[in-house]
């Protein structure tokens, strides 16, 4: 558990007019999970593509498992596994054939490839569908097979680009457990996600990425601490004026001015006696109707919000599948 598995320094990448990466630095120690967190278009996929040798940076350097991603790309490829946000498996092959093919392409030899495919099929509980064409698989099964394909050569470093985007809660949980088991076995994982709960649960350290660079880095606890303690959240009634609510509550804030997103007002707050009663009274005097009010522990959502001034999952629902745009 010592040594640096992933090190990226000052990565720049430009696509036409768009700066996908603008001086990105990342670092992950062996056997840990680095969560790269950010909204769509932040540069997460581009970073993964560079670290997984799919493209070269315009500027900057990176090493993975001790190999330079540009100079030693071919040697590095034997050490890494990549699972993307859309399951990159061949629909016209069976699950088992997919894994065997990947083993052969890692140059593992025929018999070992077959053996490894059987192992992984069992490990990922795909035995019942091992000899079925992948086009008959559900979304969750495809993701499991995709992750299995990334693990065929027992890579030292796994890159998982939004591994649970679009999965149902049960499949998500399964995926999380599998990733945790790999890390326990010594694998280093770089995980990109736009789900804060995912980063919170899996990552040892989190790099928050926005506009192609890291705007904050630390453990999940560090990042929460940066938000500065507890927050007041008020769900405003449909017909009220958000500005009136902001002005009414601003004097109570323990940091930045309150901000409203999708009718939810949020602001840092020093916990003391009667603060909720005071907030309700202030809103009432300002003529603001509310549906719900409460104080809660800071989450990574709050951390992202206070770092960027906007919510992390802003457009995640509309653009769920379009993460590759930044690389197109």
């Amino acid at each position, binding site marked *: 558990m010592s040594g640096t598995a992933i090190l990226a320094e000052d990565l720049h990448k430009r696509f036409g007019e768009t700066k996908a990466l603008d001086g990105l630095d990342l670092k992950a120690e062996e056997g840990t999970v680095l969560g790269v967190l950010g909204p769509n278009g932040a540069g997460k996929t581009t970073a993964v593509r560079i670290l997984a040798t799919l493209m070269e940076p315009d500027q900057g350097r990176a090493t993975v498992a001790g190999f330079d991603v540009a100079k030693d790309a071919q040697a590095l490829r034997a050490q890494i596994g990549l699972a993307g946000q859309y399951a990159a498996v061949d629909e016209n092959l069976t699950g088992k054939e997919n894994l065997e093919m990947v083993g052969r392409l890692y140059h593992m030899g025929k018999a070992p490839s077959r053996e490894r495919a059987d192992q992984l099929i069992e490990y990922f509980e795909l035995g019942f569908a091992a000899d079925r064409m992948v086009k008959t698989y559900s979304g969750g099964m495809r993701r499991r097979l995709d992750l299995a394909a990334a693990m065929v050569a027992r890579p030292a470093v796994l890159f998982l680009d939004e591994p649970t985007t679009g999965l149902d809660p049960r499949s998500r949980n399964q995926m999380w457990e599998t990733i945790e088991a790999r890390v326990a076995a010594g694998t280093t994982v770089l995980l990109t996600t736009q789900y804060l709960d995912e980063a919170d649960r899996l990552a040892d350290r989190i790099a928050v990425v926005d506009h192609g660079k890291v705007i904050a880095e630390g453990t999940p606890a560090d990042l929460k601490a940066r938000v500065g303690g507890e927050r007041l959240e008020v769900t405003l009634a449909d017909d009220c004026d958000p500005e009136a609510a902001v002005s009414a509550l601003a004097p109570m804030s323990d940091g930045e001015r309150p901000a409203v997103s999708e009718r939810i007002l949020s602001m840092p707050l020093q916990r003391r006696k009667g603060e909720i009663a005071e907030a309700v009274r202030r809103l009432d005097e300002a003529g603001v109707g509310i549906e719900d009010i409460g104080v809660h522990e800071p989450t990574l959502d709050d951390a992202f919000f206070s770092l960027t001034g906007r919510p992390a999952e802003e457009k995640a629902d509309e653009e769920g599948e379009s993460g*590759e745009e930044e690389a197109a």
Partner: protein
Amino acid sequence: MSSFSYALSDTMVLARRSLLRIPRAPDLLLAFTVQPIMFVLLFVYVFGGAIQTPGFDYVDFLMPGIIVQTMSFGGFVTALGLAEDLKKGLIDRFRSLPMWHSAVLAGRTVADVATNMLSLVVMIVVGMLVGFSFATPWYEVLAGVGLMLLFGYAFSWVFAYVGLSSSSPEASQSFGFITIFPLTFASSAFVPVDSMPSWLQTFAEINPFTTVVDAMRALWLDTPAGNDVWAALAWSVGLIVVFSWLSVRRFRRAVSA
């Protein structure tokens, strides 16, 4: 293993992958078997009676032509497959593996040789059932088979380039129909060139499909060969060199940007 033998084994692994798909996709299997049979029967029985081919039975005249057309189309699976792989992100997976990356292209085109062979056998058998016969010794017949497989392989590389350059699998498929299809008709494949209007004759005579069809007639029907066989070989090798180079270049760019 040396890097050359890795390149070979990677190509074979991926060629096998392409071929595994064929028997599982009934539409593809039909495209390689029933479709050529239908074309042979349509031309022999529907158009055959109306087309004058002095010195030949129409079925003898037709078979080399229709086989050249079919071979030039066999590679559409490569275009389709590569366009799909790009769209679905499989190319990213391959590129992250320590394999010979051009095997992604080579595997597909090599698999096409096997499917072209299947089409070729089916067509020759059906042709013979409806009256086609070779007029040359067996070694020239085999040379013709070899030329057809080489020519089909050349078009697989053309289609590889098309598949990598098109915006969708559907677009890559329609490309074949709007370019290669008309070119095969404006050649000596289905009718004698001297039955065409003179402006078209000029075009048909310089059309490489005419050269290849005439070479096949020389090899199978014993017509005077002239330089046609050598020219057909040169066309095939030339297409392979140019389009494999273009495709590999395009492949690098398609995946790295």
